[in-house]
């Protein structure tokens, strides 16, 4: 039985707007004006015949002359003295650390070119986020500061050291404070350096703050349990997860780790054991986590506190003073049902909340405590160190600076002029600070106000260590000599504080020798060498104890409820400020890979926007992408509006991380800054505000990839509920019912046939239930396969080059009303959709889409020059140099995965902003050619990795092992949603995965025999309908 549930990528597709229909008629949105030229008015036409002939003549002549040039002489320059470990053409891997995760850095001839997760990493077990994947590009960023600077002119390290030391001594003598302002530092050695600095200058103070803060949780734990820590959550131990606007699969605390944990209860293995966790999300704006929830309920930010109070009441059976019902009946009902489910799953339940409000988090703690989560799903004894910022500290720093109490401010990985809500106050305050030192490697907004700039190394040039979770220590080692005349920030602090240890490497080693190595049972030089290979030390975790909640909830409830009332007052629109998955807090705004990564939910690139619900947009009479003026907390910003299904009516969401003015060539003036919308209330930064939204009438088109590459309404998503799955494992896969007889254009595909794959048959299996849609694979693929960045304008013309994209499909969730084919309510009929107005109630499926390597590939048959042909290993090969650019293949591809090079992106001044310069090109993978203008390209299934893997096996004279070759997208996936391997090997993971009952092939009915099997999305909708 085929589901005829309707899926759509965007409202324009759902509503079939004329523009959408027009654009989707053709593979390429903009036709080439051939007709116009040929049939135009002859000499009066745009290109007159004579001009054409002139151009033709000149072209032929120029090409002939150009071809006459002598063959260039290539020089080959070997090493003078070759380092022992470098063999030209062979990659070296070094273990290091990115943001607390153990990683492996791939270097070629001494250049880091790719970052991979360390398979033994505690957090994500080899998976990596898009940010980590993109971090290698920042090493080659031409916007980095190249020399130390003093008073805005280049200086020398000696001069700077002398000046800073002098100043620090004078300031210390004057009795003023020396503030070291940083974002959270979780490196033990860095913290020790700062501690030493404070010993030398007792007037010094370490101010830690995070642009996107978790102070609320830390303070709440202090209040509830007397432990000011950020707990370590165990989503893998939770059967029922209820999240209030916590984007834990994306941006919340430790997204990659939580993704791995979360998926372990929902992937194929878990399903086969008939186990699946249940996840209910309450939130206003659609987050990545919300798209993955089994049930998602849209609530306003003002309802969040109220909902938690009601949940507490329902779970505890008491009633907190001031409790009242939620305004939306649906949500109110849902809270009751959720409470029942949570109670039933006591000890295996988890409630998380994305709020940074202390009172709200105390309430969450109370609920979790009732549910017995502490010691099970929440671990307070092995806390996370990922965020330790204190909002109050930065506020105090600014106040003190304003009063002239601060003599020196040293900024390390902190940019308050951009990300503090009152930037003007920071600027004002800094005027009263005598010595301002920036340790940033970019000339960011704060650095511009500093009189001394001591540029830091990139992390791939640095020694260091990290400890993201208690008991887990990772080592950071340099993989390249410093590219610019920079110096590690810790080194600068050591020099300025006259530390007896003169260099930071020795400092780190001493630190490890003295304490950390022993934790892993290592010692001495040998231990150090083992550490450099393994990359981390892990101590046995402390047994997680259960904690009893001890705090007065009545007062808390009062605070929560009064805040809610305030927010909902005055019939204003409620503004929610959030981080999106690609840009996060905006520190990496100058990274073109991240800018071009489509946001997993909105699919917008290169911009932020005001997300509003379609019904509100209709009510206000706004057009798509119409610029609106949002005013809140005394700050006004103009942003294009985006109608976002799933958005709670009466709310607007704006992402932070955009609107940088001094990020660098790529990131400057992309989007608008949303940090000023934050406010400091009750000791923490609050992300919600009451706002007014007014139309301006201007249109600002966003480059949104969501409806590019449309399937024209064909059924490509298969879905089932967990109940259905338990009854029939093949539910929703289209395997129920009779097999249709397939007719084949090719006579037979038995073993004698040309299509035989005697040895390898490379295929993939993608589990739609594991894929969260985070987009890390897109960036990993870009890094591995030298995929160019094309920029906002070109994305707007549907010319993005990503080989793998994540298609995000909306569908209306079950309302429990319409019953079709005996299945619990699904809206399937077009006319029913037309009647529906409730766009806040949608479900989402993410589908990674890449070349399917079809056995009967439609692209191959139409290529006039045989540039794309099939290999005996089941790969659809693309020979770039044979391609003449007819683009027939792209037109004939039913999956829309072929990409055309409209420009020579690697050597065209129009793309200088992104990657096109000699220095940045050092990041290119030397095993993959860069493609020229006018040729087609597409996923090659990382054929370079396949070839390298086979060669390795041949050299070692052994058969190829399953899982030995990993493709780039698979390797970075924390959810392990992608399995790649040889289908001919009956013991391979991929063969087993494809044998799963849930497997289906997209557009199977076309009989193109795709090589990528997808596994049906299963949703644990529960026994009773919530929404």
């Amino acid at each position: 039985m085929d589901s005829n549930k309707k899926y759509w990528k965007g409202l324009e597709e759902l509503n079939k707007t004329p523009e959408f229909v027009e654009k989707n008629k053709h593979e390429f949105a903009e036709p080439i004006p051939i007709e116009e030229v040929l049939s135009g008015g002859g000499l009066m036409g745009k290109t007159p015949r004579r001009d054409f002939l002139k151009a033709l003549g000149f072209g032929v002549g120029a090409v002939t002359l150009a071809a006459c040039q002598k063959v260039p002489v290539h020089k080959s320059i070997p090493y003078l003295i070759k380092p022992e470990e470098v063999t030209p053409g062979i990659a070296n891997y070094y273990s290091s650390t990115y943001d607390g995760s153990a990683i492996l850095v791939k270097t070629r001839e001494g250049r880091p070119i790719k970052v991979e997760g360390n398979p033994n990493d505690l957090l994500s077990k080899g998976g990596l986020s898009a940010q980590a994947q993109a971090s290698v590009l920042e090493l080659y960023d031409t916007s980095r500061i190249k020399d130390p600077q003093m008073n805005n002119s280049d200086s020398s390290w000696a001069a700077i050291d002398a000046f800073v030391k002098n100043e620090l001594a004078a300031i210390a003598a004057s009795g003023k404070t020396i503030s070291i302002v940083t974002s959270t530092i979780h490196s033990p050695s860095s913290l020790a350096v700062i501690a030493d600095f404070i010993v030398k200058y007792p007037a010094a103070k370490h101010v830690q703050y995070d642009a996107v803060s978790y102070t609320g949780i830390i303070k709440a734990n202090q209040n509830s349990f007397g432990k000011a820590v950020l707990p370590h959550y165990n989503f893998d131990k939770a059967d029922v997860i209820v999240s209030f606007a916590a984007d834990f699969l994306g941006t919340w605390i430790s997204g990659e780790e939580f993704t791995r944990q979360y998926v372990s209860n929902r992937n194929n293995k878990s399903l086969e054991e008939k186990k699946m966790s249940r996840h209910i999300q309450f939130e206003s704006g659609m987050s990545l986590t919300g798209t993955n929830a089994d049930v998602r309920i849209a609530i306003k930010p003002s309802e969040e506190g109220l909902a938690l109070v009601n949940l507490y009441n329902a779970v505890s059976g008491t009633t907190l003073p001031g409790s009242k019902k939620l305004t939306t009946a649906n949500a109110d009902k849902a809270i009751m049902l959720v409470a029942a489910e949570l109670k039933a799953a006591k000890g295996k339940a988890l409630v998380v909340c994305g709020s940074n409000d202390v009172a709200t988090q105390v309430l969450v703690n109370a609920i979790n405590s009732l549910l017995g989560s502490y010691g099970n799903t929440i671990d307070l004894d092995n806390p996370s160190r990922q965020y330790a910022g204190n909002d109050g500290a930065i506020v105090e720093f600014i106040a003190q600076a304003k009063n002239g109490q601060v003599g020196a401010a040293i900024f390390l990985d902190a940019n308050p002029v951009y990300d503090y809500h009152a930037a003007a106050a920071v600027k004002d305050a800094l005027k009263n600070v005598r010595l301002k030192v920036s340790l940033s490697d970019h000339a960011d907004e704060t650095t511009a106000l500093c009189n001394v700039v001591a540029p830091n190394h990139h992390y791939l040039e640095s020694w260091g260590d990290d400890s993201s979770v208690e008991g887990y220590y990772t080592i950071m080692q340099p993989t390249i000599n410093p590219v610019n005349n920079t110096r590690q920030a810790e080194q600068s602090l050591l020099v300025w504080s006259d530390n007896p240890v003169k260099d930071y490497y020795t400092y780190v080693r001493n630190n490890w020798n003295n304490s950390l190595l022993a934790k892993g049972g290592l010692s001495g030089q040998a231990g150090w060498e083992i550490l450099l290979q393994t990359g981390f030390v892990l101590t046995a975790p402390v047994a997680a104890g259960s904690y009893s909640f001890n705090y007065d909830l009545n007062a808390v409830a009062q605070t929560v409820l009064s805040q809610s009332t305030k927010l909902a007052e005055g019939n204003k629109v409620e503004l929610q400020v959030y981080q999106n998955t690609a840009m996060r807090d905006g520190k990496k705004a100058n990274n073109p890979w991240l800018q071009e990564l489509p946001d997993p939910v909105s699919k917008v690139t290169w911009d932020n926007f005001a997300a509003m619900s379609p019904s509100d947009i209709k009510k206000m009479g706004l057009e798509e992408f119409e610029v609106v003026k949002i005013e809140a907390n005394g700050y006004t910003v103009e942003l294009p509006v985006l109608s976002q299904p799933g958005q709670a009516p009466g709310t607007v969401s704006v992402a932070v991380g955009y609107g940088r003015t001094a990020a660098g060539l790529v990131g400057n003036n992309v989007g608008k800054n949303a940090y000023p919308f934050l406010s400091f209330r009750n000791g923490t930064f609050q992300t919600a505000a009451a706002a007014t939204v007014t139309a301006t009438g201007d249109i600002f088109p966003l480059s949104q990839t969501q409806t590019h590459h449309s399937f024209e309404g064909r059924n490509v998503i298969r879905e089932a509920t967990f109940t259905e799955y338990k009854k029939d494992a093949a539910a929703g896969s289209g395997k129920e019912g009779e097999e249709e007889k397939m007719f084949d254009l090719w006579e037979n595909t038995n073993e004698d046939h040309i299509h035989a794959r005697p040895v390898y048959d490379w295929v993939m299996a993608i589990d739609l239930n594991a894929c969260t849609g985070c987009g890390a694979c897109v960036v990993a693929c870009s890094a591995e396969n030298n995929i160019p960045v094309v920029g906002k304008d070109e994305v707007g013309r549907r010319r993005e080059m990503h080989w793998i994209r994540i298609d995000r499909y909306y569908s209306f969730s079950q309302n429990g009303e319409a019953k079709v084919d005996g299945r619990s309510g699904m809206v399937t009929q077009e006319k029913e959709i037309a009647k529906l107005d409730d766009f806040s109630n949608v479900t989402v499926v993410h589908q990674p889409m890449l070349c399917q390597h079809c056995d009967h590939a439609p692209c191959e048959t139409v290529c006039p020059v045989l540039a794309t042909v099939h290999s005996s290993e089941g790969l659809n090969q693309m020979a770039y140099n044979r391609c003449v650019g007819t683009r027939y293949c792209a037109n004939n591809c039913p999956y829309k995965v072929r990409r055309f090079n409209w420009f020579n992106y690697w050597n065209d001044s129009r793309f200088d902003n992104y990657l096109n310069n000699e220095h940045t090109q050092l990041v290119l993978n030397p095993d993959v050619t860069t493609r020229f203008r006018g040729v087609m390209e597409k996923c090659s299934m990382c054929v370079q990795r396949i070839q390298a893997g086979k060669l390795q096996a041949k050299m070692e004279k052994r058969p190829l092992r399953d899982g030995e070759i990993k493709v780039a997208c698979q390797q970075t996936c924390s959810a392990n949603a992608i399995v790649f391997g040889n289908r001919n090997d009956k013991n391979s993971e991929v063969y087993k995965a494809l044998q799963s009952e849930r497997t289906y092939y997209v557009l199977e009915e076309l009989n193109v025999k795709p090589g990528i099997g997808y596994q049906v999305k299963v949703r644990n909708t529960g026994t009773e309908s919530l929404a």
Partner: protein
Amino acid sequence: MRNISLIFKQFSRSVLLIAGLVVVGLTAHAQADAAKGEAIFKAKCTACHKIDTRMTGPALGPQLTEETDDAYLTKWIQNNQALIAAKNPKAVKIYNEYNQAGMTVFAELSDADVGNVITYVRTEWKKMQADKAKAPAGGSAAAEDKGPSSLVIWGLLGVIVIAFVVILVLNKVIATLERLLLNKQGLLPEEEETEEKAKTDRLAVAKKLLKNKKLVFFIVLCGVVGLGSFSWITMWNTNVHQGYQPVQPIKYSHQLHAGAMKIECQYCHTSAFKGKNAGIPSLNICMNCHKSVKTESPEIHKIYDALGYDPNTAKYDSTKAKPIQWVRIHNLPDLAYFNHSQHVKVGAIKCQTCHGQIQEMKEVYQYSPLTMKWCIQCHKRTEVNGKGNAYYDSILAAHDKIKKGEKVTAAVLGGIECAKCHY
């Protein structure tokens, strides 16, 4: 009187004979000394010493002329450590001068042996200096030798030019004489007519030929075929640089190293068996030998200069180092991926298969065309070398099943598919 003179003669003869014998005997003795010394020197000393230049140890020639105390030398050679331990000032001085790198102890050499070695070194050093004194004369002679060769060429060219001029002049003279003769006979006015006639005649012939359609067709056809095949060949060979033999910055000879000296290819091209690039050796590989071999050669000095190495002090100065820019001979385009180890290690293909008789090349040139056709031909012909490689076991078995008896070439295993080399 006659007797006396006879006796005198006989006496003098015998004296001469004896004297001669003695001399011969003496010289024979001296030669034996030096020859023995040479044998010992070559066996024991050459690892660290040279006579004329400094190596690990000092240059022995100058050292032994300066140091005449043979007793001391003998002690030093037999057991230098004892001398140093005894704090002999001379010994300690030289020990410190050479970074306290102690010389090997040769306790097994007898005093006579040491004497032989010393004699050998001294005579050799004398010879060398004598040669040096002669050398400049020889050098200039060699330079003169080269002179005539170019002179000969220029001379020949001159002769040809002169001969040509003479012929021209003679022709002119003949023509003038003929005119004079005709003038005398009064035939000159007619001459113009005949010339005109000849002109029209010539045109007529051309016209006549033009009217011959078959001929015209034939000529046009020839032209088309000629031009066509020319451009066909030219275009096919565009960017094919077979035989490309650029001048390299150092006159390195594969003939000498790989041919005469029989050094394994891998010794220098270390990564050919490991990875994609065979690799041009880094200079530290050259220095393994050339720290002591052929140290005087100007070509070797290019290596020293590049490394910032001073052969007199045996010290490296990295500030003076500058890399050597070799000219790349085999320029495979970027769009084609080639991996040496796959061919050399897995396929066990000899270097010479693609690079030609490299051991006979003084200067390397591109032996193979490096075209795709060339690659594919080889892939089609070469049987896969799967013996003793467990990787191929299942693969060859699988192929046997499908293509019974057929030769399993690289092509059969997919070696001519696009994505094997182009990605």
